């Protein structure tokens, strides 16, 4: 008989080791958190799990996008109507770019376009990624929320939260190719295995949508108020945050069957993945981050600013490299 080491025991031991102060001291990396409720960015040291800096911004930072070359981190200050171009390692401000109502934003996989959702102004703007010049504006009703691209960069898909619909914009012809109902209050969206997976905040799970037609093919139950979907770095697990249920659920990315659910309170929102396998989750209602170890289910909370929303991890950044100008 072949000996099999009990994986759960191993995971538990590794989890405990990872949480010890000695292990933390060895860890590197910085986490940038967008505090949408108090016009600031929190910088958290991944080693000590403490907020070490609070960077003031103008009004209301929500989300971020990293350029394809990884050299510029753009943070959207929605209420401030500007993009903040930051050094992704030191978080030093390089420039401020006036952009109307930048809520969600993302670069296309081919690096040609930057899509900016104006959630309050009901518009989706397509910018030239290199020059940040506006190419085309799509007035879309209402509240463009989250976005993702087709892998070839030919289309961008945007959820319209208040009208239960989603649109597909062809980036070659710069035209809306479909505008279809997908379910109540659609929020997070991700391209997965040739389909679009959409989190439905007004329902108890996800809609699987055909990207060619916009028709819903399947529904997956994950929990009440499904808000965001993130694919793990190894592309094996689809993580879903359920805002009302207060859970974070792991789905098998191939089958979309549930692997395990975790209780994550405080309005779980965005997720960033650490190299050690832990999930860093913003908690909108409790001014904190939840650091979830999927192996053990253990959660540690870290205090940050009010209404933390977007979260960016740079495991190569070090507190010593943090810009003195911030």
């Amino acid at each position, binding site marked *: 008989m072949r000996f099999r080491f009990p994986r759960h025991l191993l995971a538990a031991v590794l989890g405990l080791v990872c949480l010890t102060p000695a292990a933390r001291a060895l860890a590197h990396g910085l986490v940038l958190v967008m505090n949408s409720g108090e016009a600031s960015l929190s910088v958290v040291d991944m080693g000590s799990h403490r907020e070490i800096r609070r960077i003031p911004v103008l009004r209301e930072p929500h989300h971020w996008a990293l350029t394809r070359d990884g050299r510029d981190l753009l943070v959207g200050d929605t209420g*401030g109507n500007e993009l903040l171009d930051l050094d992704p390692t030191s978080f030093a401000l390089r420039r401020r770019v006036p952009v109307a109502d930048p809520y969600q934003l993302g670069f296309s996989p081919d690096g040609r376009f930057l899509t900016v959702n104006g959630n309050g*102004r009901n518009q989706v703007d397509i910018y030239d990624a290199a020059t940040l010049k506006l190419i085309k504006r799509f007035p879309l009703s209402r509240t463009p929320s989250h976005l993702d691209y087709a892998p070839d960069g030919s289309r961008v898909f945007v959820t319209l939260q208040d009208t239960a619909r989603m649109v597909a914009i062809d980036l070659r012809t710069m035209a809306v190719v479909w505008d279809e109902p997908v379910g109540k*209050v659609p929020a997070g969206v991700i391209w997965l295995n040739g389909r679009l997976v959409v989190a439905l905040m007004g329902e108890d799970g996800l809609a699987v949508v055909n990207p060619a037609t916009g028709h819903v093919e399947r529904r997956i139950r994950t929990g009440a*108020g499904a808000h965001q979907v993130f694919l793990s770095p190894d592309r094996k697990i689809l993580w879903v945050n359920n*805002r009302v249920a207060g859970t974070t659920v792991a789905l098998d990315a191939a089958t979309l069957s549930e692997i395990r659910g975790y209780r994550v309170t405080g309005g779980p929102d965005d997720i960033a993945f650490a190299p050690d396998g832990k999930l860093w989750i913003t908690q909108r209602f409790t*001014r904190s981050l939840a650091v979830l170890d999927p192996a053990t289910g253990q959660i540690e909370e870290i205090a940050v600013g009010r209404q933390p929303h977007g979260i960016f991890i740079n495991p190569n950044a070090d507190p010593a490299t943090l810009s003195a100008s911030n």
Partner: protein
Amino acid sequence: MFSLTLPFDLAAGWLQEHAILPVLYALGLMNWEEVAFGWALFAVYGATQVVLTYAICLPLERWRPVERWPDSRAVTVDILYTLISRVGLLPLVTFVLFYRIQVFLNGWITDQGWVPPTLEGVFPFLLGRPVLTFLLYVVILDLSEYWRHRLSHLFDWWYSLHALHHAQRQMTFWSDDRNHLLDDLIGFVWFMVVALLIGIPPMQFPLLVLLLRFVESLSHANVRLRFGWLGERLLVSPRFHRAHHGLMAAGVASVNYGGVLPWWDMLFRTADFGHDYVPTGDPTAEEVLATGGYAAQQRAGVKRFLRALAGFSAGEAKLMGMPPPRHRR
């Protein structure tokens, strides 16, 4: 990092997570989630304002009252005004409307190639200095409130609405929010225009707003309280503001219009530091405006407003068996 606002934010977060979200979800209203959280924050700070004001002002009023009333039922309606204004629907409407208009307008300005106006844009050194920034906002907004208040006494039609605020003969710390809804609406539009011009960020300074609202409530308190010669010239005191509510000051010839800072009255020569604890009320106001219920007062305010718009003179109103539209001295 330590934050004084943490307990308030956590209370609002708890309210959102455990009370509001489940209801919104059950009713199929999850698209109101963000708005609801904004209201939860307003409501928590508003409720704290009410409790704090009550806890401090009530002992003061018991300790050294200006007046004692055998029957203070007329004060009850002022409590309702306060709750509606600080905890209820009004903060929600204000927040949602202001935020949406700000997003649209500032986005449009950005599209035109301009940078939307903010104080931090004019004075970049303010970025990262929230307390200093807020104090500057306070000074500007208080100046604009001084002029709004002064003009509300100047125009017949406007004072016909504002008279409700002055009609209270039993003025207490609850009286700060007794305003006609239309008067509140004008006040909101006025605030919005100024706030858009200087780029007020909603809900970024909730604790300081709480303190300022406390000063305004205290200034209406039924208490013999003065801040001393210098203090009275730095901050509006109950004694200073009571002169504004005096029987002889109702209408166009009032004094002491300032809300938080008495500086503007001193600058524009409307300050009166000479009166000590005068009786309050508006002799020209209908009785219902002083002692009626909430709905009756709102109705009476609308009628008075329509009469003023129609341009009835006091004599014409008397001939028609109606109270004069306003008191002009």
